[in-house]
């Protein structure tokens, strides 16, 4: 073996626990959840095992090697172009039968490979007994049992990876039935000499047959007219054999191989309906399920408010005292102003963000981990159709309540570009954890929980109205819903904590320093009267149109970095402490400002991800859309208050 770092890719069907396994091996790196399609771009890590370095790549889940969603194409690029040294095929053992179809397909590459039976605990609970030796023999591959959530089996896996690489073991593909195999062989022999071979000639021939009706097909054939005749003939022969399109014939061959292996290596004891399955029939019930969905979200926000509100009041006290103390001691000089800015920046993070942010992240992590998001998609599909989208967007919107950025990345699971664009344009209107924090900390804390709930409802109405408008502009029917509903599972505390930590780290590393620096900077600017200039420029808009104190103008600039900054910095801009806010702002003004800031522009990281995922044009459309909605809605809020 040479000194080059071997590249190992994790390939498996969505929701088979690749990312959890990857995390167990590589530390806190990738995001996981119980929702198919969480890993939308690949995570990568260098891992040291017994004096050797391995480069491990966690690829998005894919059901097959025929790509259909944009995220699945990432997998193919990795496997075909950047030929890996070894494939770790991660299988959800509780869904062994279907997962084996991909295994059979991967085997055809004849790359060094190790199969991981993950979620063994779940499989056993389901009454599945898998004979590993028999499975190894059938597949001609090493098979390792793991429970990634508990880190079980990871050492055995790495040992096996090392051994397979050292001995350069390459597997052999499994044989289809004779009549199909002979046609593939015929085509393999006719492959033109200059034909781009992927992995091996047989695999390439299979790919070519299956490319029927895909865009790549035309590309292959335009360059090879002679081959076209051979290919067409083979396709026709295959099609005639089973009275089905050629691609289905091959898929059915793999399906039957998988079924056969499953029957030979597995015993199924019919387990009693578990508590979870009973719970699931309740969650998925057409009426009770919807009721529960409503209850879950209302309960979630109520809980966060009940936890956050007293905690916030308690945490605010020392910072408020410190601020007053500084002002009393040093008066109105530069140093004092800067210190006050610092205290408000740090205190804002501790006292306002943490009491709400952490509970929200924990609860969102819990819902994701048990597999509730896909179920919400199922229940809401009918409503989403009325808004021109379908249920597959629902889990993305719910993810957006946590943070807009991963939600926009996850739009890759949508098949049509039209749905992707609309969903990605709508996500920035979903109040993310940071904005929810503000809504709870300001609106609920100062005006009462009903106002916060009302604001939330307004927010959702805005999303619904926009959705029906946008889907009317981008016409053509949305493809129907096809969404896998993963099994409900008990939450893993480790997974939830990891995810919360992951999101919190982002806040502590990125947002909080900006908040503190911004707060200090604002003190400095106001000391040299620069903020007055900005306020004067924005004044016609801020006080003219929205009827707010013109001092708030300067905070909007910070709002572009992160939306919660504008709201946190309003105290400093207005020169009051948290609890005295209502002495300088009226209820109407507070709500108008919160409305405007919530919508006015996607925050910097959301904008960056929009740009990267869907291009500059869509990112610009998003900015314009947000700005116009913010102006319109906050003006309406102002109007409503002046009328009633």
């Amino acid at each position, binding site marked *: 073996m040479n000194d080059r770092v071997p590249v190992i890719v994790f390939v498996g069907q969505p929701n088979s626990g690749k990312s959890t396994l990857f995390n167990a091996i590589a530390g806190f790196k990738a995001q996981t959840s119980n929702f198919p399609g969480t890993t939308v771009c690949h995570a990568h890590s260098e891992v040291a095992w017994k004096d050797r370095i391995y480069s491990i790549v966690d690829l998005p889940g894919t059901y097959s090697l025929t790509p259909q969603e944009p995220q699945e194409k990432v997998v193919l690029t990795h496997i075909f172009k950047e030929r890996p040294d070894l494939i770790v095929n991660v299988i959800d053992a509780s869904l062994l039968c*279907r997962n084996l179809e991909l295994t059979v397909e991967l085997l055809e590459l004849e790359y060094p490979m190790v199969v991981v039976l993950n979620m063994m605990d779940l499989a056993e609970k*389901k009454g599945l007994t898998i004979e590993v030796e028999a499975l190894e023999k059938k597949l001609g591959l090493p098979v390792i049992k793991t429970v990634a959530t508990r880190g079980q089996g990871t050492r055995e896996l790495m040992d096996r990876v090392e051994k397979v690489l050292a001995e350069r073991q390459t597997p052999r593909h499994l044989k289809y039935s004779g009549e199909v195999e002979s046609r593939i062989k015929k085509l393999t022999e006719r492959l033109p000499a200059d034909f781009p071979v992927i992995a091996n000639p047989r695999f390439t021939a299979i790919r070519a047959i299956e490319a029927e*009706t895909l865009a790549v097909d035309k590309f292959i054939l335009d360059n090879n007219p002679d081959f076209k005749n051979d290919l067409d003939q083979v396709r026709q022969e295959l099609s005639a054999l089973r009275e089905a399109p050629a691609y*289905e014939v091959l898929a059915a061959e793999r399906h039957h191989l998988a079924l056969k292996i499953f029957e030979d290596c597995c015993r199924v004891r019919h387990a009693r309906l578990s508590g979870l399955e009973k719970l699931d029939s309740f969650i998925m*019930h*057409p009426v009770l399920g919807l009721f529960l969905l409503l209850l879950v979200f209302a309960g979630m926000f109520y809980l966060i408010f009940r936890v956050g509100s007293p905690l916030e009041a308690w945490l605010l006290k020392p910072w408020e005292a410190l601020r007053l103390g500084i002002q009393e001691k040093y008066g109105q000089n530069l140093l004092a102003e800067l210190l006050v800015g610092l205290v408000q920046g740090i205190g804002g993070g501790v006292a306002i963000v943490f009491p709400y942010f952490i509970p929200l992240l924990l609860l969102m992590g819990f819902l994701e981990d048990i597999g509730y998001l896909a179920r919400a998609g*199922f229940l809401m599909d009918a409503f989403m*159709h009325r808004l021109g989208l379908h249920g597959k967007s629902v889990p993305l919107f719910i993810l957006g309540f946590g943070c807009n950025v991963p939600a926009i990345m996850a739009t890759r699971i949508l098949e049509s570009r039209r749905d992707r664009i609309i969903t990605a344009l709508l996500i920035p209107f979903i109040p993310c954890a940071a904005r929810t924090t503000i809504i709870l900390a300001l609106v609920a804390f100062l005006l009462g929980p009903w106002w916060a709930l009302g604001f939330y409802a307004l927010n959702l109405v805005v999303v619904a109205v926009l959705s029906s408008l946008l889907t009317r502009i981008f016409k053509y029917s949305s*493809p129907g819903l096809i969404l896998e509903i993963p099994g409900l599972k008990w939450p893993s505390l480790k997974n939830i904590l990891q995810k919360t930590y992951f999101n919190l780290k982002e806040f502590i590393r990125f947002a909080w320093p900006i908040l503190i620096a911004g707060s200090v900077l604002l003190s400095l600017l106001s000391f040299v009267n620069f903020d007055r200039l900005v306020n004067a420029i924005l004044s016609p808009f801020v006080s003219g149109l929205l009827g707010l104190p013109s001092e708030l103008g300067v905070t909007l600039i910070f709002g572009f970095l992160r939306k919660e900054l504008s709201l946190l910095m309003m105290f400093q801009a207005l020169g009051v402490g948290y609890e005295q806010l209502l002495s300088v702002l009226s209820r109407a003004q507070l709500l108008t400002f919160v409305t405007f800031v919530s919508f006015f522009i996607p925050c910097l990281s959301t904008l960056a991800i929009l740009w990267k995922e869907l291009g500059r044009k869509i990112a610009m459309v998003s900015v314009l859309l947000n700005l116009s909605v913010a102006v319109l809605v906050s003006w309406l809020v102002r109007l409503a208050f002046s009328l009633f």
Partner: protein
Amino acid sequence: MFGHRKEQTEAWPLTGRVCTLLDVPQGRKFRIVEIKGGPGLHRRLLSLGFHRGDLIALDGEALLGGPVLVKNLNSDTRIALGRGIARKILVEPADENER
């Protein structure tokens, strides 16, 4: 346990009768006879492990023309399908003891 559709005991099973996935009662075994519709839909269902000849059962449905929940009894997986798609899947009743 919470299935809201009533068991239609009289009419089923009528072996050999082909109908769409939308017309079948919940909980009974059916066999996929044909998947109509374009190659895109067809491939998608194939890759999710729904093939011709597989045993399936309707496991639930959402309100107001929402999707139906289909369970593949061969591979023990569940998918939600919009009604437009469910209409394109033709099934025939299967013997309750078949596997």
